[in-house]
């Protein structure tokens, strides 16, 4: 269950090829990429700086991937999350899931993003024309993660 935190950019086609290399059981690959927008909360964003809690971040991501593999009928999963200073249009995060069928792959991919948003210790600071500010947590992210808790283990989704 590969999990990586890095400053470098990633290449989605390379990452997918590596994750499913030689695995002929795989019939579905679902992926999600989060990217930097140039506007947030009605202000123009020129840079986004991501920091994390080294050590705990990797443990939290590994725990989230383990839970996804336990809950969904999938073969493997990859999470790559960037840190450091990013600019609008840059890639921030990649989640890839392989499985036999699309439903579990889609569900696990969404689950991973929803849990990552609320459980992995990353923080965003953005630069706007008024200076820098820490991004506020969104209640909608908590709600998205909570839906999976209500769904319970073995369910197919929220």
């Amino acid at each position: 269950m590969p999990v990586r935190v890095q400053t470098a950019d990633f290449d989605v086609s390379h990452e997918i090829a590596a994750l499913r290399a030689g695995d002929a059981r795989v019939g579905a690959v679902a992926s999600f990429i989060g990217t930097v927008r140039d506007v947030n909360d009605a202000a123009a964003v020129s840079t986004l700086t991501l920091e994390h809690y080294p050590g705990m971040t990797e443990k939290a991501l590994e725990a989230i991937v383990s839970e996804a593999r336990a809950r969904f009928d999938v073969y493997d999963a990859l999470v790559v999350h960037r840190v450091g200073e990013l600019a609008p249009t840059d890639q921030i995060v990649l989640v890839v899931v392989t499985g036999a069928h699309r439903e579990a792959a889609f569900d696990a991919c969404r689950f991973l993003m929803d849990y990552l948003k609320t459980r992995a210790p990353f923080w965003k600071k953005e630069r706007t024309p008024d200076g820098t500010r820490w991004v506020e947590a969104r209640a909608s992210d908590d709600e998205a993660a909570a839906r999976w808790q209500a769904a319970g283990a073995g369910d197919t989704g929220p």
Partner: protein
Amino acid sequence: MRDAPPDSLTRLNVVYLARLREAFGVAAEPLQLPEGGSTVAEVLAQLRARGGTWSAELAAGRAVRVAVNQAMATPDTPVRGGDELALLPPITGG
């Protein structure tokens, strides 16, 4: 009279992340624990007692989460010398 235990056995390493690090102006500091250890709630009370920014940022109802040895903790989680206790503002990754 026995020797005092080395600092590493009685000191907690407190880590402040992101907005809290900037608010407090410190990234990490050692904190002396009472003999026999303490709890997350007691450490928070000790920090709050510093007043000013500390009591404001760590006031009840502020969404600060605590990790002990890099795992999410609750107020009654015990802490001992040598442990790492981190204060985390609401997370905003992804």
